[in-house]
């Protein structure tokens, strides 16, 4: 394998973007990444596109048209919330394996064109067949873990709320975030229940957005930039779809599988990670993820959060972008957005949210019925 570097990043601001369609979002993100890399369109040899829900036309040709790359190969990948990580993983293999020198990825989703109950249904029909009749929901999938984690480890609703408060605090300083305002623990706890034990503000939002990256091999990358960010490790893990089949409801097995692959490939350990973006689709997710990624021991995620160790300035700052909680969660774009934001951190371009001296970063997505997870480890070269 050759080394692979990120040499260009670009994204649309996330939010309710009623005046733009998918192709507008894709083109905006792509050309920002291309400009950031100082490249021309003709330099891009292939594209990977990540989206979960897009069905209005075949995404490959649509992305080719929106990027001005008609004729070039564009592969669509769908792996629920891990899609945005998985496109980078597959593009990494293509460049690392030596077949291409310069490729792009673009993760996108347009979710705000339908009502929330319709979007809930789109998610619910993806439940395994044995759960369809139950009325299981996206928040319900994670609430089932929250109840058990609280029961076994004494994790509290207040600790869950602290994840939301921290991530909104970070997101308030992120110009690309959907929600750029701080919230309080009381606001979280006094909000309506969506799926007990999760309140409204324990949940991330439904969002539009697109993110693009340009990846290149080492010799090519050095021609375009001096600030090389290496993709040092990638992983993709799966787990049982049915909650009743999963080994426990206190850990995310898919995350552990993905993280172990990425740690091994990057030859680093959890203690080496300086800053991380984890998949805080719900507050409980971040608490369990920081355990399963090895940042703290199993069961201690709530306490670790309460002690401020995941804040900027803590032992391991998590979701310095504001995470899914504040940035919003355009499903196919999120994994790519995390890598975009960690690239900013490693370049030292994260502004008020900068983690001083960050050299190694980790990103992690987790999706569907808590059964698919992508992990990516980045190093400043």
């Amino acid at each position, binding site marked *: 394998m050759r080394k692979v570097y990120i040499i260009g990043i670009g994204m649309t601001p996330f939010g309710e973007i009623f005046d733009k369609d998918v192709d507008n979002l894709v083109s905006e993100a792509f050309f920002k990444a291309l400009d950031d890399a100082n490249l021309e369109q003709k330099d891009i040899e292939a594209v990977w596109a990540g989206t979960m829900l897009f069905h209005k036309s075949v995404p490959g040709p649509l992305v080719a048209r929106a990027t001005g790359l008609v004729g070039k190969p564009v592969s669509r990948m769908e792996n629920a919330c891990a899609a945005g990580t998985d496109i980078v993983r597959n593009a990494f293999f293509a460049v690392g394996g030596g077949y291409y020198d310069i490729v792009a990825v673009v993760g996108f989703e347009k979710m705000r064109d339908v009502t929330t109950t319709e979007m809930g*249904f789109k998610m619910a029909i993806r439940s395994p*067949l044995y759960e369809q*009749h139950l*009325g299981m*929901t996206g928040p319900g999938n994670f609430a089932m873990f929250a109840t058990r984690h609280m029961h076994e480890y004494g994790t509290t609703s207040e600790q869950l709320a602290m994840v939301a408060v921290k991530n909104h605090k970070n997101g308030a300083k992120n110009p690309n975030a959907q929600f750029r305002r701080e919230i309080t623990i009381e606001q979280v706890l006094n909000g309506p229940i*969506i*799926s007990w034990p999760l309140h409204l503000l324990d949940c991330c939002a439904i969002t539009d957005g697109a993110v693009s990256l340009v990846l290149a091999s080492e010799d090519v990358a050095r021609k375009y930039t001096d600030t090389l960010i290496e993709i040092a490790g990638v992983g993709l893990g799966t787990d049982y779809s049915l909650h009743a089949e999963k080994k426990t*409801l206190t850990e995310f097995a898919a995350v552990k599988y993905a993280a172990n692959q990425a740690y091994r490939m990057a030859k680093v350990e959890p203690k080496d990670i300086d800053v991380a973006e984890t998949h805080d689709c719900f507050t409980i997710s971040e608490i369990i993820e920081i355990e399963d990624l090895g940042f703290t021991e199993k069961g201690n995620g709530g306490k670790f959060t309460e002690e401020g160790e995941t804040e900027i300035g803590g032992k391991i700052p998590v979701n310095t972008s504001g995470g899914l909680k504040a940035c919003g969660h355009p499903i196919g774009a999120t994994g790519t957005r995390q890598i975009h934001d960690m690239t900013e951190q490693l370049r030292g371009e994260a502004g008020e949210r900068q983690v001083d001296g960050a050299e190694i970063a980790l990103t992690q997505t987790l999706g569907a019925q808590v059964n698919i997870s992508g992990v990516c480890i980045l190093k400043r070269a």
Partner: protein
Amino acid sequence: MSEYITALEREIDSKFRLTGAECLECGTINYPFVRVGSSEKIVCRSCGKRSDFKPKKLSRRGKIYSFIVVKVAPMGFENEVPYAIAVVELDDGVRVIARLTDVTPNPEVIKVGMRVRAVFRKLREIKNGEIEYGFKFKPEEE
């Protein structure tokens, strides 16, 4: 509303009689189970092997392993809120996921560890007024 025929309807014994498949390679009870094509073999959830199996009736009693109370439902379920869904650990160790019934869907009432038993109930009306039946779980009488 979903137009799909669910896998449950294809393995109706498992749905209506809570019947699982015991893997003859490792002894794990699979519920539900994944058959290899239409053969008499399953892909075991535990050992992962393509295994012979024998049908195994599950315990009808167990305790709540985890649960949620849904207040905001997806399209098609809005009229049912609030409702409780639980992962139940049966006395034979197999876990199943099901709706709870005959109990107020309230975390002040429902608790992890609560004893429950399977009852056969109406699950929902599907298309054209057709009724889907199956198992729910209710608290054990003291």
